[in-house]
């Protein structure tokens, strides 16, 4: 059903109801933002926080099993 529509002009109505960047083959391409030193430190700091917290959780659970 969809293949027939894709191959003929009756699909042109789709352009009226979809925005250009909603089309799967024409999504907006965003450039990478500039990462200053503060932002890099923040992101890597959060990464370190997540790893440390994960280790603490594992310690807590192992402790609770020992008890």
């Amino acid at each position, binding site marked *: 059903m*969809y293949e027939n529509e894709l191959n003929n002009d009756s699909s042109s109505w789709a352009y009226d109801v*979809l925005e250009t960047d909603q*089309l799967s*083959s024409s999504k907006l391409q965003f450039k990478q*933002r500039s990462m200053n030193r503060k932002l890099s430190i923040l992101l890597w700091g*959060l990464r370190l926080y997540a790893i440390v917290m994960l280790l603490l959780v594992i310690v*807590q659970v192992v402790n609770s099993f020992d008890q």
Partner: protein
Amino acid sequence: MSVVIKQPKKIGGVSHPKRSALKEEDLKRARDRRRIHTLRSAKSRKNSLKLLWLLVGPGILVMLGENDGPSMISYATTGATYGVGFFLPFIILTFTMAFVIQEMTVRLGARTKHGHAELISARFGKSWGLFAMIDLIVGNLLTLVTEFIAISAGLGFFGIPPIISVLSTLLIIIAITMSRRYWTWERVTLGFALCNLIFVPIAVMAHPEPSQIVSAFTTWNPLPGGITAGFLLLVMSNIGATVTPWMLFFQQSATVDKGMTTEDIRHGRIDTALGALVAAIAAIATVLITSQLFTHHIDTSNFQGADFAHSLMPFIGQTGATLFALGIFESGLVAAIAISSSSAYAFGEITHRPHSLNNSFREAWPFYAVILLAAGIAGSLILIPHAPLVFIVLIVNVIATLSMPPAIIFLLLLVNDKEIMGAYVNKRLGNIFGIAIALFLIIVGITFGVITVFPHLLKT
């Protein structure tokens, strides 16, 4: 006849491609959007309600999906441990936090038409996108294991063995996904999700004391035992039951897959608010149900999913206990559907492969494979004898709470990015609330860390 894509024109870091070829995914999405356009052009009260009906979905699904198996067990444990008191208004607070966070994902998805992982990768670099995807998929896999434990526990009440529970759930996931139509997938999953309200009639059957409920909401009391390590753990568990990273990824990707635009942001907010409200009601109902166990001094410290249903039988009868078990099954099922989809969305976004529930299997087989693999692996794990399931259940909610601050920071950075958000960038009030929530979660996390290292600082 397909139209050739012209070279995109870059403006301020954003490319604007011209008209391009239609794919099957686009046509399916266009069919959904056409109904919305028709209703918008013929305004009436009836059409407003129809429009709301068409546009709700991602918000309700994410909130009710987050009332998953472990969350409902967490609420059940809360009611059984602390009764009717502090945690009732606290649940409202957590869902308010969830609304503030999730609303931002609606704006991000509707404005940028990018999923969360995709946007992180595009704006911060591929390595950060890859980190985000790996964290999400690993976290989701652990969470999915707990969903299958809940599913197995819920159906175990009826004597159904775990292998049948797991296989039935996988079949349901396959059947829903096979529609290859986002709309159908969404509506069927919504139907399952709204069954979360099954806890409301059960709460009525538990005959809670209305004056206690009013007192709890107005005074945030009582809090039996005061602030202890156990209390803090339950606070974190409740937060993990309402605010988790997969929700950010899921709602933004679902918003994009549904084809929502900036015109739909208002409805997206209503959708999210409705979801938060319904989920909060179900959560509070669960606390009210198991407060009967608190009142009758029943020790639930070693309870698993089905134990609650069995122990509640004297207070809510066989019917109530049956409905409770069904509710636990439903909560696990909906979460399994939503969470496995969020993994697949993130995978497709980072690997730049088709990732829509409107795609055919041929176009998007890796996307569908991730859904099935994620659910399949998690389901299989619970069938392995001596698998460390208790360990996984214990850490999942807590990990979700602790991993939320980095996820919120990325969210705040994206939603404050004027280049991509334009007029839909976060306003001052949004930032105040967003940063306050992030700080709250970081403080809770650090406090948990201190208790872990120095457990004697607080009375147990």
